[in-house]
């Protein structure tokens, strides 16, 4: 299933005018505070009627204001996890979770199962409580569960993990990944956190002041130095795909990708599985010669493709390693010292453990 969105609306202070396609998988909507991300989500869910909108889900037109087509939210089957949890204060956590399932008759048909969702979100112990007695993070986890259990055919997540601690985040992310991979639901994921985006997103749409400033596959947008200004400079990084070769005895996983062998902390994937890795530009070093006696296990022969000096002292260097593109963020001083120029053969040094587990996902 894929989603296609066109929205135009004028606010005092913001002229929203966006159009993008979201193929199956996760489309990340990124952009600064006030860029219009929540507004887009509200329009898709049917909560805000804009001046003009056209939304199609898998070819079928869901919304077309020009043709007067504007179904109400309940008819859209769009699961929405809000920036603030919006739990029903008069219902217990269990009743909140089952609310959508009940409304859609999924409970009767046995399609909604509480157990797996509550275990995964770590909320099994909260079922009898009311939302008033939950912490901020607990609330958001319940909200995620509630949307999942309602059987949506499109999922909108508006910064769903912002209030969670890193440990909880890493617990929930694999579930979102599984969801993406198994359900083939299009998921629109609003987030500021690049690790999450890189890990989950198939497609990235970057908004700025109500307009789309970059759009494309996650690999493209996140490793395109030209798109970086729209993003946060500290968050550039390439997304590469690799194949699991073996699980080694000392807890590392050997992968083939990026033109060589990569060693990463144990990945939960069988040999032969394709995974996607986000390698942040600032975690890649460049060596002229293959260095020895270094604690980094991943030394990939590579070639400089281009050098993009930034506004500060840094530069982004695009490298080709095998058929993968890597980004390295180095100082301009190093560019000069190492004489980095297109065509130069070098080694890319990637620490095994610098590829944070938050940046590893199964390929969507």
């Amino acid at each position, binding site marked *: 299933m894929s989603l296609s969105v066109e929205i135009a609306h004028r606010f005092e202070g913001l002229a929203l005018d966006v159009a993008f396609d979201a193929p199956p998988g996760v489309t990340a909507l990124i952009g600064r505070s006030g860029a219009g991300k929540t507004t887009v989500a509200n329009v898709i869910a049917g*909560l805000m009627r804009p001046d003009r909108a056209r939304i199609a889900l898998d070819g079928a037109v869901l919304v077309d204001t020009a043709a007067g087509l504007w179904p109400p*939210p*309940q008819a859209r*089957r769009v699961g929405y996890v809000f920036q603030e949890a*919006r739990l029903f*204060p*008069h219902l217990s956590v269990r009743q909140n979770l089952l609310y959508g399932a009940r409304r859609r008759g999924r409970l009767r048909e046995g399609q909604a199962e509480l157990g797996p969702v509550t275990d995964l979100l770590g909320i099994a112990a909260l079922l009898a409580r009311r939302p008033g007695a939950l912490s901020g993070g607990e609330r958001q986890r319940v909200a995620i569960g509630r949307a999942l259990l*309602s059987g949506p055919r499109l999922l909108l997540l508006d910064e769903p993990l912002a209030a969670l601690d890193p440990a909880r985040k890493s617990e929930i992310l694999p579930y979102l990944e599984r969801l993406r991979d198994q359900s083939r639901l299009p998921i629109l994921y609003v987030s500021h956190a690049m690790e999450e985006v890189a890990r989950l997103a198939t497609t990235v749409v970057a908004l700025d002041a109500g307009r789309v400033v970059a759009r494309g596959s996650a690999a493209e947008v996140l490793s395109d130095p030209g798109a970086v200004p729209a993003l946060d400079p500290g968050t550039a990084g390439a997304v590469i795909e690799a194949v699991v070769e073996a699980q080694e005895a000392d807890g590392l996983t050997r992968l083939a990708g990026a033109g060589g062998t990569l060693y990463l902390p144990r990945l939960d994937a069988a040999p032969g599985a394709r995974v996607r890795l986000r390698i942040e530009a600032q975690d890649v070093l460049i060596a002229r010669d293959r260095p020895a006696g270094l604690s980094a296990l991943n030394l990939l022969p590579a070639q400089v493709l281009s050098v993009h000096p930034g506004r500060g002292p840094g530069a982004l260097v695009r490298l080709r390693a095998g058929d993968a593109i890597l980004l390295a963020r180095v100082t301009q001083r190093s560019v000069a010292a190492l004489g980095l120029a297109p065509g130069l053969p070098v080694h890319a040094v990637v620490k095994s453990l610098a590829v944070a587990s938050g940046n590893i996902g199964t390929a969507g």
Partner: protein
Amino acid sequence: MFAPPSPAEWEILALSLRVGLLAVALALPPALLAAHALARWSFPGKALFNGLVHLPLVLPPVVTGYLLLLAFGPQAPLGQALDAVGLPIAFRWTGAAVAAAVMAFPLMVRAMRLSIEAVDPRLEQAAATLGAGRPAVVLTVTLPLALPGVVAGAILGFAKALGEFGATITFVSNIPGETRTLPLAVYAFLQVPGGEGAATRMVVLAVVLSMGALLVSEWVAARAARRVAGA
């Protein structure tokens, strides 16, 4: 003077209670609907509708009673229709309840409307995205959250029904055992010199009755509020 109520007084008391409860039951559904319409819908003529809702409050009660008589009297088509379906209300205690319901209606609507307006529309939005159509949203989110106001409205209506005099006596007259509620009895006592004592007894009974009802209702409302606050 504060001897236990006599059988005749018990009869009046029981009748008042019955009338009050039926009045609230009759007024509750349309009051909820009107409150919801005024709080959440927009439709042409809304201001006029709002005015109509308040009418029984503004009109002298006797006028309301007279209009009811014209509409539901034994000769009026509506009254005859009700009679035909076995629900006669003219000169019946059910008619007293109708009069009280009409008089209580604006008070109930106002209270309920305020509570419905105070329900966070973002929760209703959330319910809609989870598949709840408008009626389901109202039943599962709006009304439960507005419960304290609904209870408050019902209480207010019950209290008003207990005190209603003018519309009741004009519409269904004063028939002992059928339509003679507490205020009618009190009025009759006050019309004769020296009737103050008996009237006072009746008033004390009315006060005790309504205080009891209020206590119960406050307790219900507090429970509802606690449910919503969590814990």
